[in-house]
């Protein structure tokens, strides 16, 4: 919840009092964060905030605000209402949209000294793919992931597949998923070969990975153009649809993201495409041996990065911005990044975290934790444009129509492109 003091601080900032006066007074920050996976995330975040307070005396109030979409809504609403947080973890892909709203402050503006610049250079480049625009850095990687496949090794063995060799190509994946689909005497499916999320908020991520798997890029770097109506994009959607319509290895219609983990843990789905951030949850709850593998591709493995970055807001006073940046640096320290990775399964955002003893030991004992990192070189950034949520919605609706069998992949992609063109028209430079 917002506190009165935050409100007062915000109104003080809007009165534009000299920043020097307030420099001493930053005692409190609030930040919004989303949860997209299972597990005790709030306790972990609370712990980091307490540690930060112990070290700096600044109290950080973390506000759990729902999933990524909900957190975005709440943060922006609060900021527009003049009572917003100083920082928030939001989808990395929202950079263009947030910038367009003119509510962000770049790290360059907050002030990065030489040490700060060196610190920024220490993140994995793939995680900074959605951070740079107009020559500035707008966000700090935090809970980052790639899409990976979780698979049920017992089911693989039962279906006569090698549990240690996960498919690397689309053809292999489809064949394996078909074999893994189990039916009872009446023809009722008791176990699906594969499930991928097509619900609102997730369809675009699943599809982004599939597009990269045929090596197709969906948008330009400036976020003003999209390329859905392309044979390769259509091919990607056809493959997704075909898992249900041709291979009968996935259920008809849309599968929902929150349902995938329970489905997998219940043995209802042999393979699910999910985030690395879910690893610790699956590890704790799976009653069967499971494997983690990189996503296959049409010809070889390719995936997409995902997850959230820390953004800083204009509405904060200079002193608050500086304190927020201090917090970002605090949570990305190697030991803490390693701890976060171990406790959640998210990929530590900096290579140096993998040099810590804690993470080295953890990975040695649980090699699945290091699978996703190996796929960073074949990962691309997320679909990210201006009016991001609108483009996502256009894509999601059409993907869902296709998965429901009411539109062909070609028609779905053509309609998405037409809609995206309409949405992005004001942003095209003449």
């Amino acid at each position, binding site marked *: 919840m917002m506190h009165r003091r935050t409100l007062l601080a915000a109104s003080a900032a809007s009165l534009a009092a000299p920043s020097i006066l307030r420099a001493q007074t930053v005692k409190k920050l609030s930040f919004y964060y989303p949860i997209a996976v299972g597990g005790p995330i709030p306790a972990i975040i609370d712990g980091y905030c307490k540690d930060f307070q112990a070290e700096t005396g600044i109290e950080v109030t973390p506000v759990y605000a729902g999933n990524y*979409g909900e957190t*975005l*809504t709440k943060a*922006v*609403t609060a900021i527009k209402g003049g009572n917003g947080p100083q920082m928030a973890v939001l989808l990395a892909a929202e950079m263009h949209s947030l910038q*367009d*709203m*003119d509510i962000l402050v770049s790290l360059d503006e907050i002030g990065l000294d030489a040490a700060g610049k060196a610190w920024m250079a220490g993140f994995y480049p793939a995680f900074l793919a959605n951070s740079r625009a107009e020559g500035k850095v707008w966000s700090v990687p935090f809970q980052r992931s790639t899409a990976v496949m979780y698979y049920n090794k017992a089911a693989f063995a039962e279906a006569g597949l090698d549990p240690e060799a996960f498919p690397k190509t689309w053809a292999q994946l489809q064949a394996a998923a078909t074999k893994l689909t189990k039916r009872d005497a*009446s023809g*009722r*499916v*008791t176990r699906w070969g594969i499930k991928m999320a*097509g*619900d*609102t*908020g997730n369809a675009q991520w699943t599809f982004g990975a599939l597009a990269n798997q045929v090596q197709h890029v969906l948008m330009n770097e400036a976020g003003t153009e999209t390329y859905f109506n392309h044979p390769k994009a259509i091919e990607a959607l056809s493959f997704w649809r075909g898992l249900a319509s041709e291979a009968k290895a996935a*259920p*008809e*219609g*849309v*599968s*929902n993201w929150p*349902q995938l983990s*329970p*489905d997998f843990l*219940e043995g*209802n789905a042999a393979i699910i495409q999910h985030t690395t951030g879910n690893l610790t949850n699956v590890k704790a709850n799976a009653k069967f041996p499971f494997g983690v593998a990189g996503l296959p591709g049409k010809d070889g493995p390719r995936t997409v990065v995902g997850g959230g970055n820390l953004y800083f807001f204009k509405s904060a006073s200079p002193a608050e911005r500086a304190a927020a940046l201090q917090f970002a640096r605090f949570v990305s320290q190697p030991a803490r990044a390693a701890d976060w990775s171990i406790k959640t399964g998210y990929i530590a955002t900096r290579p140096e975290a993998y040099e810590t003893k804690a993470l080295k030991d953890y990975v040695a004992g649980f090699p699945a934790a290091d699978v996703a990192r190996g796929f960073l070189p074949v990962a691309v950034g997320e679909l990210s444009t201006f*009016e991001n*949520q*609108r483009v996502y*919605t256009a894509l*999601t*609706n*059409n993907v*869902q*129509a296709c*998965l*429901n069998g*009411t539109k062909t992949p070609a028609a779905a992609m053509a309609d998405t492109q037409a809609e995206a063109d309409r949405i992005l028209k004001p942003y095209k430079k003449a």
Partner: protein
Amino acid sequence: MLKRETWQAWALILPAVILLVAFTHWPAITTVLDSLYTTPKGSRPPRFVGLDNYAALWDDPVFWTALRNNAVYAFATIPASVVLALLMALAVNTALPGRPLVRMAYFTPTMLPMIAVANIWLFFFTPDYGLFDRILAVFGGGRHNWLGDAATALPSMIAVAVWKEAGFFMIFYLAALQAMPPDLQEASNLEGASRWYFFRRVTLPLLMPTTLFVLVNAVINAFRLVDHVVVMTHGGPNNATTLLLYYIYEMGFRFWDTAMAATLTVVLLALLGTLAWLQFGVLGKRVHYR
């Protein structure tokens, strides 16, 4: 000079007037004004565009989908929940063992917040191992992707709404039934009227004021109750469960297109106003108040 009583009267209604103006009329007027301007974006201030937003809305296929969905939703939930409420009220108005328990059971869905209800029903609707699919499996039924299939998603939303609302309306019917004088029943018994005849010619007409009240509420709820859409489907798949209010929310708080959201709100206001006028104007005349 105004009379003293007039001053007093104004003073007495002033608090209510202030609240109404501040929270109902003023927002309504600004909404209408906002719908005539473009959405301010960052450095671009709003620009007057007249009725352009309404023209854009007319061309928006999702708006028509939402309107159609909402019509289906209303036409299904209103009669179903009202009839069910009446039947439940009649059932618990008679003497039967454990009557308080049954009444409470019928009323429970009303007491639960819609968000909780939606989460419970999410489990009911889970494909393969959710409640409904398990029950159907006993009878040899197959798998249903209730919420992920465009054909069953909206009916699923309707079922949740009826389940949630019927208990609430039952309370009003029950109160009306309890207030009905018992001598009417005794008189009709003496005259040898059948139970059905008594229900049709005495009970039902006497319940008409309640029915009107319940109907007005049901109509409002058919446009107002969208919490379960937010929790369960986000309007998907492919807008199959997008209702008008949900679309307003999406426009306003996901896309930040406040001008379009204002335009939609004006349309919804006009729609609800017309419906209320029809109900009180047409139906109201046929209602017999004692």
